[in-house]
Structures are given as C-alpha cells and as structure tokens.
C-alpha cells in the first residue's frame, strides 16, 4: 500500500500542469497565430483526456490489482469538469461574445454544439455530488446510478470532437477507440464477469464446527 496522500498530491500537481502552462503561454503571448482557437482546442482536448483518464481508473485498478487507485477517480473527474468549464467559457467568450441567444441558436441548430453542451451539462450534477457528504446523502446505490451518466457525457464529448473535424479524423477516432475499449471492459465485466475476475489466491480454510 503506497502513501495515498502523497500519491494524490502528485496526481493533483501533474493534472494542474497543462492548464498552468496554457495560462503561462497566454500571459506571454505564445499561443500561436489564432490564440482563441488554440485555447478552445486545448481546453476541449484536456476535458476529454481527463474524462478518459477517470474512466480508465476502474479497469486499471482491477486489471493491475491495485484497489487504492480508486482514490484518484474523483480528482480526475473533477479535472475533466474544470477543463470543461474553461472550454465552455472560451466558447462563450471568444466565439460568441457572451451572446446567449446566439449560443442557444447554435446549440439547437448544430449537432456538434448540442453534443458538447449535453456532455457538459451532464458533468455538472456529477461534480456537484462528488463530495463525501453528497455520496452519503444520496446513498451509494443512487449515487452510483447517477454517476453512470458519465458514460453518456464521454460518448457525447468524443462525438462532439469527431463532428467538428473537417477531414483528418485520426485524433478524434483515437479518443473514440480508447473510449470504446473502456466501455467494452465494463460490458464484459457485467455480462461475462468470469472473464475479468482475478483468480482469487488460495485462502486458508476456516475450520468449521460440525
């Protein structure tokens, strides 16, 4: 059992690196020729990266047999939400100049905007109910059911990316492939649990009274 507190700190610090560098570069005017577009694409990609990382925790901890990895899941999910907020802010500000009517029209008319919005809106209640207190209040089973919505958010997020790209779809397809793998693991786990179960080691047999 590693030092969980320190491991969490390390994940926190590392997860904060990309956004920090983005702000640093913005401050120093090093975001290239089209800075608004660069911020929009970077924050969007980071949202998906952290969403997929949070979804990778459960399969990884089971496959590797490292149960303590579950401790990272909430933080990674919250980082996905954080970058999603930045992404939505960048879109609202840079692309729509805070014109809410234009955003509403965009959302209704354009499937890729609709999917992006849907994905983000799903993340809101998940972030709000991420505290220990809320888990207790909702009860584990209800909380779990609610948080299954993250799959819908991830699917809409990847589709949102795929639909945006003009011709070279390799990167969104790569995100899609990872997502499919992560979802497939869960499907197999659910319908063929024997395939993903780790063989239990030999346990001492408790003497039973006859």
């Amino acid at each position, binding site marked *: 059992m590693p030092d969980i507190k*320190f491991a969490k*700190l*390390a994940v926190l*610090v*590392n997860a904060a*690196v*990309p956004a920090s*560098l983005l702000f640093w*570069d913005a401050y120093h005017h*090093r*975001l*290239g*020729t*089209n800075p*608004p*577009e*660069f911020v929009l694409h*970077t924050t969007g*990609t980071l949202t998906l990266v952290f969403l997929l990382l949070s979804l990778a925790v459960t399969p990884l901890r089971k496959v590797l047999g490292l149960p303590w990895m579950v401790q990272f899941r909430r933080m990674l999910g919250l980082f996905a939400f954080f970058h999603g907020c930045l992404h939505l802010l960048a879109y609202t500000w*840079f*692309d729509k*100049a805070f014109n809410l009517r234009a955003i509403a029209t*965009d959302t209704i*008319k*354009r*499937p*890729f905007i609709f999917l992006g919005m849907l994905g983000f809106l799903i993340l809101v209640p998940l972030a709000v109910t991420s505290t220990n207190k809320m888990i207790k209040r909702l009860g584990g089973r209800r909380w779990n059911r609610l948080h299954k919505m993250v799959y819908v958010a991830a699917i809409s997020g990847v589709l949102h990316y795929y*639909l*945006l790209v*003009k*011709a*070279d779809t390799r990167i969104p397809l790569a995100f899609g492939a990872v997502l499919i793998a992560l979802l497939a693991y869960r499907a197999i786990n659910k319908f063929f649990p024997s395939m993903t179960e780790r063989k239990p080691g030999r346990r001492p047999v408790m003497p039973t009274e006859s």
Partner: protein
Amino acid sequence: MLIKKSDDINSSEITSEENYWNRRNFIRGAVLAGTSVATGLLYRQLNTPGREANKAEPASLPTTGGYVTPTGEAATAFEDITNYNNFYEFSTDKQAVARRAKNFVARPWTVEVGGLVHKPKTFDLDDLLKIAPLEDRVYRHRCVEAWSMVIPWLGFSLSKLLEQVEPMGDAKFVKFITLVDPQRMPNQRDDALPWPYVEGLRLDEAMHPLTTLAAGLYGKTLLPQNGAPLRLVVPWKYGFKGIKSIVQILLVKDQPVNTWNAVGPDEYGFYSNVNPKVSHPRWTQATERRIGEFGLRDTLMFNGYGDQVAGLYSGMDLKANY
C-alpha cells in the same frame, strides 16, 4: 543464559529522525518536480503552436506600394500569414505546415496549360511570370473555417495567362491541379484527402480581373507553405478555392469536381462564394475572426467584393449553389 550481543550498528550511524524525514521530503519533492516536468514536456510536445522563424528570407521580387486594402484594413503580419496554413499536402495541422514544408524546393517548375485551347503550352515558371507585370494586390482572405486575413499578394490576373492559350468556344470551366509528389509533399502518403488536390472555376469567374495567379506575397516569392511557386487567389471565395502549387491548368467543358466538394458535398460546394447568409452545416459563416484581432467581425457578402463580382451570379440561387 544468553549473553546479549551488542548491536553491530553503531548508534552514531543510525539516521536521526530529523534526517529520516528530511530525506523523505527530499525524495517527495524530487518526485513531484520530476513528474511535473515530464508532464509539462509531454504537453509541450503534443500541444504547442509551432512557429517557424522563416529566417530564410525569400528572394525579392519587384514591388510597388504599401499594404493596406482600399477600405483601410492593414495587412496581416508576415509571421502569421506564413505560420497558419491549410495545406494538407504537408500537414493537417495549420501550425505545422511551415515546419513540414521547409525543405520543399519549387524549382524547376513547369505549368501545363491545355485542354480545350487553341495553343496549349507547357510554361516554364520563369517564362510564365513574364506574361504580365507582377502587381501588389492586397485582398481579404476568408477561410471556410471562419478566420480571415488580409494578404498582400504579388501576382497578375489569371485572364492574362488564359488569353495566351486561346480557349475554344466549348471551354466552359477551368480545372486546376496541384503537384502530386509524396517525396516532396510528405502528407500525400496519408489519405487525408484524395490526391491530387483539384479546384475549378467557371470560365467567366476565371477571366474576372480579381482572379489572381500569385507568385509572391509581401513583395517576396511565395514560401512553400503559402503555395509556392504559383497559386490561385479568388478573393470573393472561401480560401480553399485558392489552389496551391499548381502544375496543370485545363480548360474543360464540364464542371470539374473540386476536392472538398468530393469529400463533403453537402458542406463544400463548387462555387463556395463567401456568403454570411449560408452557414456551413456545422458552424455559422456570419462572422469571422480576423487573425491578429480578438473580437469577431461580420463576414461580408462576397467577402466585400460584391460590387465587382455580384454580376457573375445574377439570377442564381446562391443558397442552392453554395
């Protein structure tokens, strides 16, 4: 009776508690710093806007005036024009094209002008550029992706070239073809688009004085990323109509299928005139981001060249003929 052996570690060699914690903190600090630097480097590797210095100053061509549009819009910075390019033959990443195209050698170069013409001819580039004097032409450039620039091209009207080869009566369209050479255009090994890149214009569009064959910008020869050595500029149409690194110009009877139209027929039409009222299926074309500016500008009908070109399309439904 057991005689207790003295510890073989001298008590003075035992790490003091203070040192133990110091070492632990030192290792932790090193782990945090090391992993953060690694994460930062990974981020930089995957996601930094590349910027070629463009130190190799292109050879100068004769030039005349200052670089402002008649409406007073200043030309976009040379740095930006040469570091933000859609040129899929080199990369699908606009900010990587300059780097990937750096070693592209555009000489020697010939352009075949043929098809339905009385005097077909294969021009050596240097001869072709002597057909008419090169002029500075400062035009707005509107990309279909909703960004725009102002570019001081150096070139002359395409009509000057077409007049030389004398189009036949049944030539109705002009078809343009880009070089195919995966050795020199490395991304042609991938099938991001079907190669060669093809564009087309109606003959009257091609003969319009605004339609330009450009060999330079900012008074210098074109850099590879901008379509060296010869490209088309059609300022009232979306940027992708401006085919780059042209090797063939053919006069034809039937409307050519241009590359983007073949790839996405419902998104990219043959005409592709800049039109704020006809949105791209996935984004609005009503506004644009001028490179170098933060806010959005309203996109102008025919990119602001309506006075000159609207007549070409009188009576046409521009929603159907997007």
